[in-house]
């Protein structure tokens, strides 16, 4: 049952450009995948490590800026990809060392300050970032000779990266390291007493999270062929956090659902609902107040309750099961 659902989902995803019709929707789907990767990465910190950050857009942006700079200085796609990831990891390491000095709200505040500094640099260090006008790249790179210029081509490439990210997350969650990260979240003192280096566990989780944020940032650059300070702004970090929280922290499906929700609101609903910003805020508030565990676990809970009321002995199998909650 579970496998069949997974197979159908994969098939639908892989054939999406054929049945969705207009290339605009293919592009929207690509954006959803990119933000899903970002949200999955962010979820490592928010969900599994219990560390809420409002500065992650900086890591997303560093990859995009580094990628753009490398592409514009004529480097090939492999160097671009490696360089962008290394730059992201380096910045993530700095962020981690500083932010991990605080916990709880202290951690949040430090990430806000770091994010704002990164934004200030993107916005004002004009020789590096071209300030407000941002950096454009003329063409998408063609990794291994495959052109990414068409909408479906980029979609498929993004889908591959997305699937790798999902698998990496699933492995990560099930791994001993994932378990120790959840341990450090729930029982830091006990973990320390047991001989674990809680700081190191969190530091590595930060790097892992930052890495996937950077991957998403690089894909964002390929997709938009453009990066500007808004990518790094506090509101971008807040939006990513919204995806994770709305979908459900500490689950695999949650951040993906959250990314889809936010992109649908921003890109599709905004054409029909004039006050989409208000609606987005309202949805956010409603989810936090009435479904604090997030959309995916919340819906699962509701379905279970409904099914349990009808057929007490047939709980519905779901993909989100491997959550550590």
């Amino acid at each position, binding site marked *: 049952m579970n496998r069949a659902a997974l197979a159908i989902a994969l098939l639908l995803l892989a054939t999406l450009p054929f049945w969705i019709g207009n290339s605009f929707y293919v592009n929207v789907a690509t954006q959803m995948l990119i933000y899903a990767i970002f949200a999955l990465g962010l979820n490592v910190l928010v969900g599994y490590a219990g560390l809420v950050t409002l500065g992650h857009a900086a890591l997303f942006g560093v990859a995009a800026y580094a990628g753009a700079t490398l592409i514009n200085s004529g480097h090939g796609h492999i160097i671009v990809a490696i360089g962008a990831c290394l730059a992201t990891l380096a910045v993530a390491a700095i962020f981690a060392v500083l932010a991990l000095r*605080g916990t709880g709200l*202290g951690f949040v505040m430090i990430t806000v*300050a770091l994010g*704002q*500094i990164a934004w200030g640099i993107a916005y004002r260090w004009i020789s590096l970032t071209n300030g407000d006008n941002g950096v454009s790249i003329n063409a998408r790179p063609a990794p291994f000779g495959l052109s990414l210029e068409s909408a479906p081509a980029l979609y498929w490439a993004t889908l591959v990266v997305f699937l790798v990210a999902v698998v990496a997350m699933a492995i990560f969650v099930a791994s001993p390291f994932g378990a120790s990260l959840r341990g450090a979240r729930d029982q830091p003192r006990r973990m320390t007493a047991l001989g674990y280096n809680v700081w190191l566990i969190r530091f590595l989780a930060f790097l892992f999270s930052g890495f996937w944020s950077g991957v998403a940032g690089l894909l964002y650059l390929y997709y938009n062929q453009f990066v500007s300070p808004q990518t790094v702004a506090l509101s971008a970090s807040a939006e990513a956090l*919204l995806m994770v929280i709305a979908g459900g922290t500490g689950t695999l499906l949650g951040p993906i659902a959250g990314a889809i929700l936010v992109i649908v609101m921003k890109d599709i609903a905004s054409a029909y609902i004039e006050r989409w*910003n208000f609606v987005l*805020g309202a949805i956010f508030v409603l989810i*936090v*107040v009435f479904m604090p565990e997030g959309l995916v676990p919340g819906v699962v809970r509701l379905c279970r309750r409904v099914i349990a009321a009808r057929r007490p002995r047939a709980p519905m199998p779901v993909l989100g099961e491997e959550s550590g909650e």
Partner: protein
Amino acid sequence: MNLWLILSINSVTLGGLLFLLSAGFSLIFGLMRIPNLTHGSMFMLGAYFGVTLIGWGFGFWLAALMAGLGVALFGGIVERFVLRRLVGNELAQVLVTLGLSFMVADVCLMQWGGDPISVDTPAGLVGSSKVFGMAFPTYRLAIIFIAVAIAAALWGMLDRTRLGAMIRAAVDDPAMARVVGIRVSHLFTFVFCLGAGLAGFAGVIGGPILSVYPGLDQDMLPLALVVVILGGSGSLLGSLVGSFVVGLLYNFGQAMFPELAYVVLFLPMLIVLVLRPRGLFGRAAP
């Protein structure tokens, strides 16, 4: 060295405005342990309320007071019906305030339109006065007095009244405050209203300098955040000192290092967070 003198005096006046903005932010942060991300929205909402009230024919000062009360009422509703449901989950509370700030911004845009609205300087404070032999806007000097008066009133309330003692107790140790019979949840409502009301009042007071426009909320929130992080949450003295420090950083940073204006603002915040997480005057580590 006129420039230095002007910058110094202006640092103080900007500090005064920042104090009005951030005193409530600091109290809320200290008591409820949440950075209230709607605080910028409260400031903007107050400013818009003030504009409407002045348009109805109320005087500036009356409009400022009424706008403050209106925003306090709004704050009370937010606290009572939204934040109260999430007691104990600070993270959820922060996120809710973030969502609410989106909503307030959009409602203001809907209600008051996108055009900037200017607020006239109250009669009697128009023009400039001589300070150390230099012309300086009278209204800005008045703001210093307002800030000092509010600071004194708040200090009296916190230090000399039973209510203030309860708030201080709850800031220091909420669990113990509950044990000795203080209704901490009532304090939350009160402090949230007070903080929101002060921000709303500040919005009108700031109007003649800043004018009112969409995005004012996002312009002010980071400044309040820096003030409170520097000064330490829950400390009145902290927000007073923090306000003046930020006023100085802002004025001299903009004039001396325009390229690094943002770094000059946020780097001290980062340093304080990393080296002294409770801020310069904070009571307890968060």
